[in-house]
């Protein structure tokens, strides 16, 4: 076995999703990555940055289109023995008891019944589930269900543990407890696992747990930055050294791609094209966030981690909103701070009708898709066009599902700005207002 301390090694991994109708769409672009023995690596990125896809490539659940993934020197061609995974949605079989679920992997391996039972009970014990052996998943709370997910993974004595946002479906308190318990098992070497990859969208979680943080960028997914975290454990999330790294990560994640220095100039001068994947931000939340930034205590400028705490939003939701505010020219971000632009301030101070006017102006100025739709509607006789037309255009750049999402966001924004109208029943965009 070629042992250079690397458990998993991915070389130039590309992943293209291809359907019969559309040309291939690149979701992972030449990703190089390795997991070394004894480390926890966290992968952060916005939703849609391909981080979950990348984890599935590493797991052998989906093959890379190009490049190679090796586990202990052997090319991964399917789920490898020695790699286990914990899922965001727990993925427990509802018709099996806790014990049945934990035994599942062993049963598949053909482990004899008695040994199976013994090992499963040990794993259940380890993860703090004893007493619940005969319970069905639907009887358990989210936190307990995810403990079953961990037990099912640990019972096969995995070399590598892949965690796909395992805590993000849990409430904050439960997530914290479970995360702590998992970390203890790892630090006290009570599990034989040699390396962990954690996909997350919670920045503090990543900084608390990981030895190294990989940040994924979107469209197509690629590694944007790598941040080593060499702080001693246990880490206090409120300590300045941890917060400094948290700030650093926020700064990277909230910079609009294409405007940051050093980004491979994929799109040339124009950073946002018609086919840009607009962040699915709701108008209510956008307005709310802009109001919050403009009002005291921030009075126009806010520290992002603080904002997350004071406004009770999740990191992932924040990224979406911040990107939208930047695209619309309402706010700018640098170094983990966000501040309202003059237009943004004017918007925050305006009344309802003026707000709509400003929003419409910004849409036409900064969002090419909005300008495009309006132009088409202006030019066409009858001033209406079927949505299918725009979907087809979007699908040149995006998957079918993404195209629908983007158009839905666009229609929401356009309706608010009264830039155009949309008839759901007929699926037609037009300039008329319903009479």
């Amino acid at each position: 076995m070629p042992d250079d301390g690397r458990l998993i090694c991915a070389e130039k991994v590309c992943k293209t999703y291809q359907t019969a109708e559309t040309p291939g769409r690149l979701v992972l672009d030449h990703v190089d990555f390795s997991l070394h023995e004894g480390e926890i690596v966290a992968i952060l990125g916005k939703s849609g940055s391909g981080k979950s896809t990348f984890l599935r490539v590493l797991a052998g659940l989906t093959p890379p289109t190009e490049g190679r993934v090796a586990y202990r020197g052997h090319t991964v061609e399917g789920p490898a023995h020695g790699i286990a995974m914990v899922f965001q949605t727990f993925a427990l079989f509802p018709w099996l008891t806790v014990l049945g679920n934990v035994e599942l992997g062993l049963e598949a391996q053909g482990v004899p019944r008695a040994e199976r039972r013994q090992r499963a009970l040990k794993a259940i014990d380890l993860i703090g589930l004893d007493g619940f052996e005969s319970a069905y998943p639907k009887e358990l709370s989210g936190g307990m269900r995810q403990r079953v997910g961990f037990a099912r993974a640990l019972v096969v004595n995995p070399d590598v543990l892949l965690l796909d946002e395992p805590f993000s479906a849990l409430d904050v308190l439960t997530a914290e407890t479970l995360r702590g318990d998992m970390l203890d098992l790892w630090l006290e070497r009570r599990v034989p696992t040699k390396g962990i990859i954690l996909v997350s969208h919670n920045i503090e979680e990543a900084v608390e747990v990981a030895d190294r943080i990989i940040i994924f960028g979107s469209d197509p997914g690629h590694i944007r930055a790598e941040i080593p975290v060499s702080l001693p454990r246990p880490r206090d999330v409120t300590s300045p050294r941890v917060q400094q790294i948290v700030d650093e990560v926020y700064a990277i994640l909230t910079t609009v791609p294409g405007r940051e220095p050093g980004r491979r100039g994929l799109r040339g001068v124009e950073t946002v094209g018609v086919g840009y994947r607009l962040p699915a931000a709701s108008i209510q939340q956008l307005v709310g966030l802009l109001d919050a930034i403009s009002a005291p205590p921030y009075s126009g400028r806010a520290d992002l981690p603080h904002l997350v705490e004071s406004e009770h939003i999740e990191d992932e939701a924040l990224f979406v909103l911040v990107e939208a505010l930047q695209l619309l020219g309402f706010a700018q971000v640098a170094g983990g701070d966000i501040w309202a632009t003059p237009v943004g301030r004017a918007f925050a101070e305006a009344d309802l009708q003026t707000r709509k006017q400003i929003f419409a102006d910004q849409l036409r100025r900064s969002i090419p898709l909005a300008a495009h739709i309006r132009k088409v509607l202006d030019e066409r006789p009858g001033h209406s066009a079927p949505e299918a037309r725009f979907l087809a255009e979007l699908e040149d750049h995006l998957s079918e599902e993404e195209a629908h999402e983007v158009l839905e966001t666009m229609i929401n924004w356009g309706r608010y700005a009264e830039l155009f109208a949309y008839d759901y029943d007929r699926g037609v965009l037009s300039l008329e207002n319903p009479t």
Partner: protein
Amino acid sequence: MWRAARSGGGAEGTMQQRWGLPIVAWPSRLRPNYWDGVALPLVLGSVVLLAWASRQMGAPYRLGETLAISLDPRYLPEYGLRTVLRMALALAASLAFSLAYAAFAAKSRRAEKLLIPVLDILQSVPILGFLSITVTGFIALFPGSLMGYECAAIFAIFTSQAWNMTFSLYQSFIGVPQDLREAARMYHLSPWQSFWQLEVPFATPQLIWNMMMSVSGGWFFVVASEAISVNGQDVKLPGIGSYIALAIEQRDLAAVGYAILAMLVLILIYDQLLFRPLLAWAQRFKVEAITQDEIEPPWFLIMLQRARLFDLMRSVVDAAAVLLSWLARRAAPRRAGVQRLRFGAAGARWADLVWNGVLIAGVAYAIIDIARFVESEVGLHEVLHVLLLGLCTLARVVVLIVLAALIWVPIGVWIGLRPRLARRVQPIVQFLAAFPANLFFPVAVVAILRFHLDVEIWVSPLMILGTQWYILFNVIAGTLALPTDYQFVASNLGVSRLLWWRRLILPAIFPAFVTGAVTASGGSWNASIVAEVVRWGNDTLVATGIGAYIAEATEKGDFPRIALGICVLCLYVLLFNRLLWRRLYLLAEERLRLD
């Protein structure tokens, strides 16, 4: 070792739940309890009866002999048993067929392309048409034995159940949540293991519901398929269907009454012993969390779970399952990537092309073959005539559905707004839907004869007699599902009666209504074959329609005309479904769903 240590208590140790009802831990398991007092005679009795009845199925028989059927009600239990056995065999065959067919369609993209449209068409072929076509083949298969006729009857029942169950399974198979699939692969379940541990359990609740619906429909065809006419010769297989056929021949209204009574008991037994327990048991396979309307465990399930005898039987089944999966593992050495067969990209495109070519060629050949056959045997003129007959039947179906809707929608809403009443009414409606309406046909015929009613009009209600209940059932369910908030809003705003119907109730129950109406219309098409020609002794009432055409051709053994009639009926059903129901369905899905 641990087993001994852990098996002290009663409730714990409910493990290894793959297929079973909960096992109760070992030591207490050895002691029989009072449930065994019920279980043991039940089991032994059914074994003996089944053995006897299945021996009768293979009795020697030659066409032309008359099988002695007696109208003495004392024979009814025996006939009932024979009928039930046919039903059970058909159900088992349907289950096996649908598992294999659905699995194949869901696993292979290429097979899917052929299998699913074929299923769609099979679904619209009138079930009694299958009987007419296949009976000669089955007789040839078992010369000189009753087995051929039995098989034909069972096959007819099978065709009334299998398609529906297969669709349900296929839908479930392709709907297995992605995360569960990934977990199964991640933990190295072989395809065989994940079929039995993931896909089948996931499909179980829906499958059992569909089985129940299928069996409801099946009773109708059991009755219709026991008395078979082959080339003008009547064969009456011992069973309730033959009993009633004889009662009709001999104009014995009392015997009709006995048959109805016997059927009632049979359906009750099926419901209590099979479906109530199955439905309750299948709750565990539901992926969602426990809902409010948890089904109360029925007495028979409790018996199954408590009686030790069944634990013993379960152990045997378990052992067989273990052995099977061990064999499967041996037979198919684990492949590295547990996926669909993969070709290279270019290879796959070629294979697709070839496969599409084969499909197109097959379709073209079939069309030419049918055209040639029809032209040589019946002629174009008759085809047009049959198309017209189809229109007559179509008119009947449309009018009936509209009438049924006008009657049952208000009643269903009225019941649905009273949840306590609805809960009591729903099982009764389900029961009515299961009850074979053809048992009531003689009563209607007697009435038509007595009052000299117009045959063309008064035979029509028979077509919807059995299937109208689906409309009622679904309307009640749809109204029950309507959140009470909406009604509060409506009364708060002082909405008038008319507006309340138009803006609230009708849109809210629309999806449920469409589901019910689709089922009802499908059933009516099927029933036209037995409803457009009805008899009472020597009096035969014939209505103009394609059902009557097929029925008469069947009686004469006129194969080309049977085929023509069935093709045309099939065409009407397909077009009707495509042009009307599917659109309404989509509309309901898109716009009027409550969530």
